[in-house]
């Protein structure tokens, strides 16, 4: 199976450690992965802010870059959702016949990281060791967009040494929402305050999720409050082993 990584522009720039963790886990499971350098961005910011035509070249670039792979794996539920739901829509609205066909052919091969592990590779125990108290925040895109269900928790429960604790009001939005956090900063902050209060109530040392954007938002709030709780992408927990703690 030819596996390509779609690391996303945001992870690439801000959270390269997540990409490295994905590589670690997949290689540990015996797979060879590729990172096509022509990749950039899924166009989510443009799409969600109303700049649809500006997202179209990015859709075309994505389709071009990943055309030849059997599986395209990404550690971002929201970017996977963007590709799966909205690339077909943009191709339909603005694209030519060929783009529409390319996108339609590609979409079934695009996988969010946890879903790729559980559903395609059929593993839940990836050999990780992480002796810490951890809480998981299901981001809106993993919960209601991609319907990941408890796949992430299945993976986390199989981690040795982990103490997994439930997050109160886990399914309520953290208030990030891309440009929402800037355009409606006050409402976003009010939502964030409830989310960080929930995180602190768990007594967890680490909060993890399948989307670094939401984690940056929640982690930024925790940090501003002087909390020592760390935010980590779930892939980084799965990449940790006894000898190699992240």
């Amino acid at each position, binding site marked *: 199976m030819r596996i390509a990584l779609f690391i996303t522009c945001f992870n690439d720039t801000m959270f390269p450690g997540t990409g490295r963790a994905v590589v670690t886990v997949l290689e540990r499971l015996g797979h060879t992965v590729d990172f096509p350098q022509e990749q950039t961005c899924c166009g989510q910011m443009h799409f969600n802010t109303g700049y649809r035509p500006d997202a179209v070249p990015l859709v075309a670039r994505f389709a071009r870059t990943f055309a030849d792979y059997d599986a395209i794996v990404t550690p971002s539920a929201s970017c996977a959702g963007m590709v799966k739901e909205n690339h077909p829509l943009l191709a339909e609205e603005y694209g030519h016949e060929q783009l529409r066909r390319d996108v339609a052919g590609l979409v079934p091969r695009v996988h969010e990281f946890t879903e790729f592990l559980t559903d395609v590779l059929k593993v839940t125990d990836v050999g990780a060791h992480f002796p810490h108290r951890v809480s998981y925040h299901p981001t809106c895109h993993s919960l209601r967009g991609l319907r990941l269900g408890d796949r992430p928790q299945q993976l986390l429960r199989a981690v040795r040494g982990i103490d997994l604790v439930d997050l109160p009001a886990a399914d309520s939005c953290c*208030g990030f*929402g*891309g440009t929402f*956090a800037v355009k409606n900063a006050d409402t976003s902050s009010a939502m964030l305050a409830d989310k960080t209060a929930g995180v602190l109530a768990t007594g967890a040392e680490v909060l993890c999720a399948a989307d670094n954007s939401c984690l940056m938002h929640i982690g930024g709030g925790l940090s501003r409050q002087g909390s020592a709780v760390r935010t980590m992408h779930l892939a980084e927990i799965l990449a940790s082993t006894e000898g190699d703690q992240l």
Partner: protein
Amino acid sequence: MSSRGVVWLGSPSFPDAARVALKDDQLRANLKRATGTIRDKRLTVAAELDDWEELRTAAEAIKNRTARHLDHYLVQLEESVTAAGGTVHWASDAAEANRIVTELVQATGEREVVKVKSMATQEIGLNEALAEAGITAYETDLAELIVQLGDDRPSHILVPAIHKNRTEIRDLFRAEMGHWGQPAPEDLTDEPRELAEAARRHLRQKFLTAKVAVSGANFACADTGTVLVVESEGNGRMCLTLPETLITVMGIEKVLPTWSDLEVFLQLLPRSSTGERMNPYTSTWSGTTEGDGPSEFHLVLLDNGRTDTLADPVGRQTLGCIRCSACLNVCPVFERTGGHAYGSVYPGPIGAVLTPQLVGVEQAASLPFASTLCGACYDACPVKINIPEVLAHLRAKVVEAKDGHTVEGLAMKAAGKVLDSPRLLGAAQKAAALGGRALARNGKIGRLPGPLHGWTDTRDTPAPPAESFRTWWRKNRESE
């Protein structure tokens, strides 16, 4: 400003209005308690039906079919209502609807009407229009009465006074009820039962003497000409049966093809709205009946932007809304800001998509952005209206209307250029890493001035690391 109601004149944009609401701790506590309770109840009673998802699918299908053949079903409705002894009027906008209703009331010679809670009459500002003609409209729904007595605005579709708690309501009753109708008892407490009783007594005189009633409609069946109102208190039923003249104002999208379609909606509506298996009162009427109920019935069919909405293939699903308010109760934004921030009769997620479509996106440009696109509303909606999809669609319309020459538009264009080139993206990453690290202290970026200050007011941002993933890959994997 168009002649379409819906938006309150002079309303600030959503972020500005929200900022004010967010400072009101009492409001936030009231909202959190109210929406939290109803949210849990809804989940419980929805889970009781093993065909809940099938019901949603059926409701969506019926609403889609209705929208596709709306002209046909409306004409059929007019024929059925006329045959049953009612009179049908067509109103293209708020002003026309108000004129029709005012003239109908004037023709009776009455100066007072009792009202059944109705979104459509809120939308067109009927009470204000009647007042201008010297006619007083008395709201009889408990929550609407609270809003009216307080000279306030509704903030929720189903519970217009959700922003007020019981103590605030008791104080309002004590202060205001004496101005007309029976005053509130001296020793009135804030027990819900006592409050409801005080309202009932206050209104009783009006129920018994009013000759004209004005209502909305939850549904109307094209085949039988049956109009329906669903309610909890029974005050609506008093208005629908006691007066001599009944005037119903109904959005044209409320029509259903057949009587049997009600089966689906009467299961979905109470469960989705109040979290009850069945609502206490469902009143149906078909035209007029000699010696029973009103002797005159007028049905005003209101367009007010609906046919424009129908013309948009993505936006038209909004017309399927049955005003259950489930989307409001699960919305994390509504829960924090309350309904007034939306500046419209229709608040919450449905308001954020319906209002801009009814009045034109330029008139309500901030509303499609008043959401994180978290999707909770879509999951809750009993007719499966994909609100996030419509929100994103309307955002594009707002941007189009602004012609792209805004600061944001130029920034998006620039970002698009960078993101369409791995080389430019790599360069931008290096610049961001350098710039970010220069700004950062202890690896974190604190408060920033300018448009990003809203973000940095409450959050730290990590400085971008020196090495991007693509650089790491090139060094560690490419060379192998």
